[in-house]
């Protein structure tokens, strides 16, 4: 399940006096099974880009090709495309609506015309995947905590069995525990189901410990791509576009400038502890 984006452009208010270029000649390829982080400051075009991936926004010019198929070529294929690409919006819990957790998650599969047994199986396995216990299935989703609500909303997307999962800031506004739960589950889904994951986040620390590839977007253009090691060592380039490296990366850089001999490319706490332990004289 590879994604190919070719020469994608998008303007807000196209043709009006307020015309603004939101996406500017985006070209990129995401391979099947990748865990990709998309970073950029507010207004850089992240959300506009991800909404193109399941044809919520159609390209004004350029193409989105998923598994060799141009997703905007044939209108009758839209439903299939949207099943394949699951999009979890910012604050997805605002979209919960049904009387019970179970019914809310069942809404998508039911509308897809699946049998009751299949719907039941999918609802239960999706809720299990996001760590919502069976005793919560008959509760109103509105009685749950913020983190639980969000996981139910994500289960609703998983129940459609997407092959590509796009999450737009899934941890925004959650406390550290809620954040770790959601991101931990996303990581497990990526590992066990082998789905391709695209994660939009403002947290460099979260990105550093999860993804294998990073896309950096600024002013509607992809300005940097690479592994976390490649991207998070570019302190100046990241700062110039309003981003930063991880807290740990700054500590490692400052230690090196004070004469410590440390290995390169350290961005997470545990790596840093190991490296510093070896790097100090005792």
């Amino acid at each position, binding site marked *: 399940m590879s994604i190919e984006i070719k020469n994608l452009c998008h303007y807000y208010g196209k043709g009006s006096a307020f015309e603004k270029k939101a996406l500017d000649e985006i070209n990129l390829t995401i391979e099947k099974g990748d865990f990709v982080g998309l970073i950029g400051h507010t207004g850089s075009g992240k959300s506009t880009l991800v909404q193109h991936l399941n044809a919520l926004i159609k390209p004004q010019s350029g193409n989105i090709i998923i598994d060799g198929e141009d997703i905007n070529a044939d209108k009758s294929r839209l439903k299939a495309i949207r099943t394949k690409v699951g999009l979890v919006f910012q604050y997805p819990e605002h979209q919960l609506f049904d009387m019970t957790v179970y019914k809310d998650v069942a809404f998508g599969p039911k509308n897809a015309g699946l049998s009751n047994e299949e719907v039941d199986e999918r609802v239960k396995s999706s809720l299990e995947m996001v760590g919502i216990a069976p005793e919560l299935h008959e509760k109103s989703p509105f009685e749950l*905590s913020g983190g639980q609500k969000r996981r139910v909303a994500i289960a609703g997307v998983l129940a459609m069995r997407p092959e590509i999962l796009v999450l737009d800031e899934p941890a925004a506004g959650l406390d550290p525990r809620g954040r770790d739960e959601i991101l931990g589950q996303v990581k497990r889904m990526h590992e066990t189901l082998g789905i391709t994951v695209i994660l939009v986040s403002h947290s460099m620390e979260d990105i550093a410990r999860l993804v294998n590839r990073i896309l950096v977007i600024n002013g509607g253009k992809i300005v940097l791509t690479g592994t976390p090691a490649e991207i998070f060592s570019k302190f100046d380039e990241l700062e110039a576009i309003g981003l930063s490296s991880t807290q740990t990366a700054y500590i490692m850089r400052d230690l090196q400038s*004070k004469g410590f001999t440390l290995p390169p490319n350290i961005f997470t706490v545990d790596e840093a502890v190991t490296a510093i332990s070896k790097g100090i004289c005792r």
Partner: protein
Amino acid sequence: MEIVVKTDEIVFEYAVQSDTEDKTDETPPNVALDGVSISISKGEFVAVLGHNGSGKSTLAKHINGLLLPKEGTVWVKGISTTEEEKTWEIRQSVGMVFQNPDNQIIATIVEEDVAFGPENLGIPPAEIRQRVDEALEAVGMTAFAGNPPHHLSGGQKQRVAIAGILAMRPDIIVMDESTAMLDPIGRREVMAVARRLNAEGITIILITHYMDEAAQADRIIVMNDGKVVMEGIPNEIFTKIDELKEIGLDVPQAAEIAHKLRLGGVDLPRGIVTGDQLVEALVNVNRN
């Protein structure tokens, strides 16, 4: 130092809706605050930490009388929040900035939004003009005075929301996760404004999930299950790594690295919170 906010053993419960017909099947009330006593001095910068549901927002809403305690008392500048005829006086002294920038701006032009509060106080137009100009200046938004707010970034909108509060000339500003929905630039902008206002004498109560923000406060109050479980300066609080993790909170990465190095036998002083402190301590270790 003058105490501007004081709570004495306050208790607050949210009503739990039960859809069971059988009224004998009593659902226990949801206790959000369970005997909270805090006091905050004039000019302090206090951060309140706690996971979702720990009671920190409920506490914040008690400080300007949006919620009234079921038991105990809240005093703002010596006035109890239950004194109904003083409610407006209290709300004028305690301004609140909430999480979502889009829910707090009502007017179609930035300066009109900032003028809304003082207009409602019945302040003469010339003075409103002056207050609005000063408030926008204080948050660095003067250049946007005539702009429609929906074209602003999240951080800019929060700064306009803060200006709207400043125009009421408050003594205390409570920021209830006001940076939670912002990107890193927006967070830095809002924190810079909060620090500047604090330096000018306004008491700041900052509710946040971001430990790097809490590290900038004079004092941290940690809440869990409706109770205050820790209180102290950032350097003390952030050495309690295991306790903080136990109640679902983070510590700054520098504090965590220092903690783990110490466990591994590296001789580091306690109380390391920032990257600079860690680097300096490690340089000392290497020198000895």
